[in-house]
């Protein structure tokens, strides 16, 4: 029933705003980026990867104190150890990725022409495990988050440059992600955009809403709230729950398409994961 309502809502959104549907991803990116650069004129593009810390001095100071020795270092170390531990068949994760898996987070997410779906880094990590006879890891936290943290760490400094190939299926996945982002959901009937676009920089109770621009750059994150690492899809689920919407499964098609759209919107911003957040 909820699903039906959400699909209907999305259709309604499409129906009333045909202009959004017909714009190309490049046009979307220009508009998206332009909106935030104008809303926060003193923040250079690359700083948006630091989220709320790019727009609020008081929380930035606390973040810098945490970054003195950030807790995600523990996960990165664990991730490196896991990454280098061979599977039962003797192979390692390095065999599944170019460059031995070092500095390759920048390749994700991408649209896979063979399978016709969006592949994220975490999805690829589990594909690697399954291919080598190992059971898949859980997608939101724990070992997979640590491996993702390590791979994010070795990718630091590269610039986000997601491609949307000239393939109608890739474009459809991008559009689905975009619609997800702007569609209302949940009992609070809010979209991602309501908070992170329309109200970026404003407060929701005592929290300051971070701008959507740059959102995927620093994942996975160590959140003080979680007392541990979490992946991007863990956060998607949390955010959906917070507007009282049933979350989708981590690495579901919906969330992978959403990640595709959101990361493309952050093209030009450096990869700076893993990150520390509250």
């Amino acid at each position: 029933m909820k699903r039906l309502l959400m699909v209907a809502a999305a259709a309604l959104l499409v129906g009333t705003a045909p202009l959004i549907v017909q714009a190309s991803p490049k046009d979307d990116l220009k508009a998206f980026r332009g909106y935030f650069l104008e809303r926060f004129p003193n923040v250079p593009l690359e700083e948006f990867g630091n989220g709320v810390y790019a727009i609020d001095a008081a929380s930035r100071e606390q973040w810098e104190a945490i970054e003195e020795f950030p807790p995600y270092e523990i996960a990165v170390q664990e991730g490196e150890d896991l990454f280098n531990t061979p599977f039962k068949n003797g192979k390692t994760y390095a065999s599944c990725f170019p460059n031995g898996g070092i500095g390759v987070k920048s390749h994700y997410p991408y649209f896979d022409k063979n399978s016709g779906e969006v592949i994220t880094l975490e999805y690829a990590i589990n594909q690697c495990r399954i291919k080598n006879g190992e059971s898949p890891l859980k997608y939101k936290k724990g070992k997979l988050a640590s491996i993702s943290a390590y791979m994010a760490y070795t990718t630091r400094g590269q610039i986000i440059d997601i491609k949307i190939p000239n393939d109608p299926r890739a474009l459809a996945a991008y559009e689905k992600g975009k619609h997800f982002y702007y569609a209302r959901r949940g009992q609070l009937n809010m979209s991602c955009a309501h908070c992170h676009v329309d109200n970026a920089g404003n407060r929701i109770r005592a929290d300051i809403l971070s701008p959507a621009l740059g959102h995927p750059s620093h994942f996975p994150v160590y959140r003080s709230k979680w007392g541990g690492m979490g992946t991007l899809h863990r956060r998607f689920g949390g955010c959906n729950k917070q507007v009282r919407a049933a979350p989708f499964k981590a690495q579901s098609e919906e969330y992978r398409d959403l990640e595709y759209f959101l990361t493309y919107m952050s093209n030009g911003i450096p990869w700076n994961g893993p990150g520390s957040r509250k």
Partner: protein
Amino acid sequence: MANKSIRIRAKLKGGETEVKSLMSHVMETGLRKDKKTGKKIPAHFIKEVVCEHNGKQVLLAQWGVAISKNPYLSFKFKGGKKGDTIKISWQDNKGESASAEAKVS
């Protein structure tokens, strides 16, 4: 709780050595309830941290449950030379312990 659970950086700066460390520990207060069972999760926290410079104790830290999870500790002392050994050891309320060393750079 052995390998790599204590990360240490020790740097010589203007006649004093600054030590920063990050320890991997749950620091459970004993006040939280398990969401599924409703029972209190037992306290599990580091009680003592001994910090040594070339075998001599420079700091004894006594901690309660209010130190954050994955605790951070930084201190400074006068003196120290490059290559000196900093050793940090902890013991928790369950009798578990760990220690690690690093060289002053």
